[in-house]
């Protein structure tokens, strides 16, 4: 009885120690590089419920996103903003 308890304890301890040796998989799920397209948006932040998406373009619309980025890029040109 005592021996069985000790064996059980040793097995449980071993399993607990070995659990620390696990690691996350080192490859992508599909095995290839993938990334979502930027115009798919970032949605609402799960933890805060905040939407960080800039206003003025429709999420999911590639053309709208490209226009938004172009507009934002042109915003860096103070010659067109000030003159």
């Amino acid at each position, binding site marked *: 009885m005592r021996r069985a308890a000790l064996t059980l304890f040793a097995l449980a301890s071993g399993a607990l120690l070995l659990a620390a040796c696990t690691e996350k998989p080192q*490859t992508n799920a599909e095995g290839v590089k993938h990334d979502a397209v930027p115009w798919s948006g970032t949605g609402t932040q799960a933890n805060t419920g905040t939407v960080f998406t800039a206003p003025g373009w429709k999420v999911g619309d590639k053309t709208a996103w490209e226009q938004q980025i172009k507009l934002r890029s042109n915003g860096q040109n103070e010659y067109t903003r000030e003159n």
Partner: protein
Amino acid sequence: MARMKFVCDSERCIECNGCVTACKNENEVPWGVNRRRVVTLNDGLPGEKSISVACMHCSDAPCMAVCPVQCFYRTDEGVVLHDKDVCIGCGYCSYACPFGAPQFPSQGTFGARGKMDKCTFCAGGPEANGSEAEFEKYGRNRLAEGKLPACAEMCSTKALLAGDGDVVADIFRTRVLHRGTGAEVWGWGTAYGSQQAGTPPTGDKK
């Protein structure tokens, strides 16, 4: 759309390190890792110039060529990104990169040298857009939010430009054509009136 590009105007950069701070804050980059930094040439001497340097998202990226585990990929927008789940932290990319972009955190899975970290053009990485996993590994995905990289948008003198390569090139071209020297410099009139550079002020002094 053309490729996403950075351009830094050395005539405008004032070495304020605002871009570095913006990047660290936006992406919560760990201590000891600088995805972007300001390099000053001839520091303290006449003609001193500063430029802000990070990953230039090369069209033919040497880091991508030397990576033994093929962890790099390029998006359709020309942004060079990498997969930290595949990176083995060997450091080959840091030897290959002419800009010193790849950084290695000192506290990582591999002890002395962790998995590579670099500028993502604020485009996140191969995780769901805007997810916690993406933020934790790669930082904010501002492109998917319809914004440009924080460093460029934060630049006070607009020395650092980011965005569609064609647009950025047009902005820079306009700037170079307009700025000239002395009183021709943009903003001179606002700061000093119509007085020409080096000309003593006119009018009677009483």
